[in-house]
């Protein structure tokens, strides 16, 4: 090793002397005609730069490759072609990619003025791991019957093959994790009204057909096989059901932007009254309230507050299917836990999120959220035993605020979770 070093130094020395000797023969370079000057790197510089060049060669190749790819994409307007081939000039048609861990990746298609003015067609298709499939299609015309009364028709099919069930209640154990496949076909028809700007009211009926099957995760026990062993009480809705639901919903959106809002808020309220169609075992009513508010603290630093409550009740002696219970965990509620880690009839969540710009196209966020489920929030209300999670992430937005990719890391007492989502907000009611 030391020989190599000594040799290198000698070489260095010789080259320096050679360079010095060479320079002595010339007049000062500033007095030479520019076209006769040697303008490249000297031998010694080239030699000295060689080790570094070798070390960084792989990275250089990667970035050279990236630049070439970028050049081809740019020159052929590939990105524009993909987006614009599906988007018309006046902005009435939009196609955007979407991704969430629950639905997988796919596309959302929005066509305004479909069939008639004021009618909006929305359709999504997404696919994920283990044959995860989501299809959605909906038509909304807020002025179909009169300037203030319209109609919304929508339907979806989803197949989520590795849902988890840990039992019911805030004390459900991680050890009792079971796996199931949730398959659902849903059809909804609602009268809708926009009595005030930014406010949407809806009332209607929905039909759903749910099938519960063995999950596709081979490493976890199947819910269907293990329910009797793992849980003291029977799990209602274990076989799925066809249900009819009466719906009343209200949504108010006063945000100043859909991507990364800095002011305004969202308010969502719904009441569902659902009964099993071909049986008398299942039936429930559910209130849901979800409030979000955005405050600009200073210079685009935004505080986002959220409160969510769900109250679910049995109808008479009918049971509430376990998949309609309030669920905590996952990308929407209590991000530090697995999806639906805690389930019960009632749910309360409070979250605070602080967003701040780190680049014109990127905001960073830090969040903290606390929540718990109750079997009866009025009888058992307590501020104890709340579960919490905290974390941070990056929100990448496009110039028009439509394309928002979110990368998040969330931590809870049980685990650390990573999330990536793209255009999650576009799927709102």
């Amino acid at each position: 090793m030391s020989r190599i070093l000594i040799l290198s130094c000698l070489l260095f020395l010789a080259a320096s002397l050679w360079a010095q000797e060479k320079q002595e023969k010339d007049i000062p370079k500033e007095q030479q005609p520019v076209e006769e000057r040697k303008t490249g790197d000297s031998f010694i510089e080239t030699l000295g730069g060689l080790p570094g060049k070798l070390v960084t060669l792989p990275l250089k190749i990667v970035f050279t490759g990236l630049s070439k790819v970028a050049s081809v994409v740019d020159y052929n307007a590939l990105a524009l072609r993909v987006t614009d081939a599906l988007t018309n000039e006046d902005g009435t048609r939009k196609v955007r990619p979407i991704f969430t861990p629950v639905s997988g990746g796919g596309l959302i298609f929005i066509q305004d003025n479909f069939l008639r003015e004021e009618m909006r067609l929305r359709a999504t298709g997404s696919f994920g791991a283990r044959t995860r499939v989501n299809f959605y299609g909906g038509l909304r015309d807020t002025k179909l019957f009169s300037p203030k009364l319209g109609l919304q028709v929508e339907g979806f099919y989803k197949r989520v093959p590795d849902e988890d069930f840990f039992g019911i209640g805030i004390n459900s154990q991680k050890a009792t994790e079971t796996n199931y496949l949730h398959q659902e076909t849903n059809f909804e028809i609602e009268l809708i009204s926009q009595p005030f700007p930014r406010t949407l009211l809806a009332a209607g009926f929905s039909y759903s057909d749910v099938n519960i099957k063995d999950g596709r995760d081979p490493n976890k026990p199947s819910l269907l096989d293990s329910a009797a062993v793992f849980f003291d009480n029977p799990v209602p809705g274990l076989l799925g059901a066809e249900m009819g639901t009466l719906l009343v919903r209200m949504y108010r959106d006063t945000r100043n932007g859909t991507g990364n809002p800095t002011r305004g808020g969202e308010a969502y309220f719904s009441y569902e009254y659902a009964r099993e169609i071909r049986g008398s075992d299942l039936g429930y009513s559910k209130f849901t309230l979800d409030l979000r508010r955005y405050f600009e603290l200073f210079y685009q630093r935004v505080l986002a507050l959220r409160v969510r409550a769900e109250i679910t009740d049995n109808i008479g002696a009918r049971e509430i299917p376990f998949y309609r219970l309030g669920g905590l965990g996952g990308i929407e509620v209590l991000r530090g836990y697995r999806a639906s880690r805690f389930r019960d009839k009632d749910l309360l969540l409070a979250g605070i999120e602080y967003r701040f710009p780190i680049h014109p196209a990127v905001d960073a966020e830090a969040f903290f959220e606390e929540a718990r489920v109750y079997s009866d929030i009025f009888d058992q209300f307590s501020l104890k035993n709340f579960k919490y999670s905290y974390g941070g992430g990056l929100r990448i937005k496009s110039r028009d605020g439509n394309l928002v990719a979110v990368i998040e890391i969330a931590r809870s007492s049980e685990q650390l979770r990573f999330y990536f989502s793209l255009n999650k907000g576009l799927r709102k009611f």
Partner: protein
Amino acid sequence: MQIKKLIVGSLVIFALGCAARKPYTLQPPIAEENDDGSIAKPKAQKVSLYEDAIENVFGREIDEFAKLPAHLRKLTNNYKQAKNVNALDEVPNSSWFTNRHAQNPMTIEELQCGPNSGAVPDTSGPLTIVAAKVEGVSPGCRIKDQKGEVYFVKFDFKGFPQLSTAAEVISTKFTYAAGYNTPENYLSVIDPKKLQIAGGVTVKNRWGREVPMTMEFVQQLLDKAHSNADGTYRIVASKALSGKPLGPFLYGNRRKDDPNDRVPHHHRRELRGYKVLAAWLNNFDSKASNTLDMYVIENDRSFVRHYLIDFGTSLGSGGYGPAGRSRGHRGGFDIGNMLLRILTLGLWVEPWEKQPSIISPSVGYFESKLFDPGDYAFIIPNPAFQRATERDGFWGAKLVMSFSDEQIRAIVETGEYQNRADEEYVIKTLIERRDKTGRYWYRKINPLDRFRVSEQEGRYTIEFDDLSVNAGFEQASTTAYRYRIEYRGKAVTKYAISKGQSSLPLSPEMIQAIEKQFKQKANLREEDQIVAVAIQTSRSGGRSWGKYVKVHFYFPFGNEKAPQVIALEREN
């Protein structure tokens, strides 16, 4: 231990090798770079914006990080200096640059005229669209007027009257006067009713496909533009450059198929020093895409002339509207700043974030209070700018400082702002930014310039301009200069001190010391009669001394020739 000694010894010898300098010879400074020899037409090149960005943000950064000699140069303050300067540390005229206002002050009329030859577009008759505009960032089209002249036409964006057209015209004239090649840009007004499309004109649609240009396309273009109350549009008409376009030049490397292009672009003083001028004009988008090489025929020679084009992202204009507040403060991808913001949870609010988003619709966002000439950030790191040394910066600052208040006003007036207050604001801001530029760079280098040597009855005096004092940044009364004679790199006299005046008389002792050196030479040649005066400047009346500037001058001994300045060496 031995290895350490060897390494240290090698470094010392390396440094000495680099520092060794052959004595100057008696010859006038190089005034022209002969880079206009006839050549075969080089291939036109395309530079993708994204390719340029990725290469300059990541690729080249990695290269630089791993370049050990570059780190060694930093450690020893032995930066690689520009390779096309002459002995007076100035730039010879070339196909890149022509010494103009800073060397030979232009008249107000000349400054206002700029590169324009008077070929104002004739908008009285039909204007024929002959092509879409694809060069530069601003959208537009190419039109032919009744006289058959072709112009690239650009508009102001809707809601921002005069913003980009005024910026384009004003910045073009400053850049031209500084010495760079720019297109002729004219302000004009067109009536959309006079627009017609020539047959066979195609345009790339949003899908990137060539389709016939239609009036619908023109209307879409006009819909985005700001129209006057009478339905006409104010435009900036950029006269088509003569010659054949060869695409942009890169700020790094050379055009390999141009035998005249011998100096790597990042080692060209005028491209390095352009950093200072671009920062002054808030031309934050100074990248390859905003340049153009033209294959021209001049004086029976065919060669490449290099142009700076598209100044739509300068002053307060951001190309697509007002410039963003972060422009000039943060690059397009400043990962260090992003990490810092994350670590401080956004509680650290940068001063520019507290600024209003625009001054006015016509001015956009342009200010001087937060402008930092030494830390100005361009959207994409520019390889020439990044290699600029203090000497390059000082040279660039001299270009900027060559514009007086009156001259700045005269050029800004050619932007034809409708609101007098907007015009005054731009003038005031440019003056303030100019002074900040001068103050900053004149402190980095000993700002003594334009040396002369005079001889009267055997008494020699070195005279010069102290640029800081002349600009009013420093007081002559508190300024002192100390100087000594050096011969062949060795000091032969003690320091003498001169206070309050920009002249250094050579004392009889100094003359004797010089003559003594000459007499030691057996065969005294003219080259042996070049001596140096090393000068340091103090702004505190002599309490502390700054960097030196060495003036090498021919000291006639025993003949009738006049003394003359041969070379300048500025400590970096």
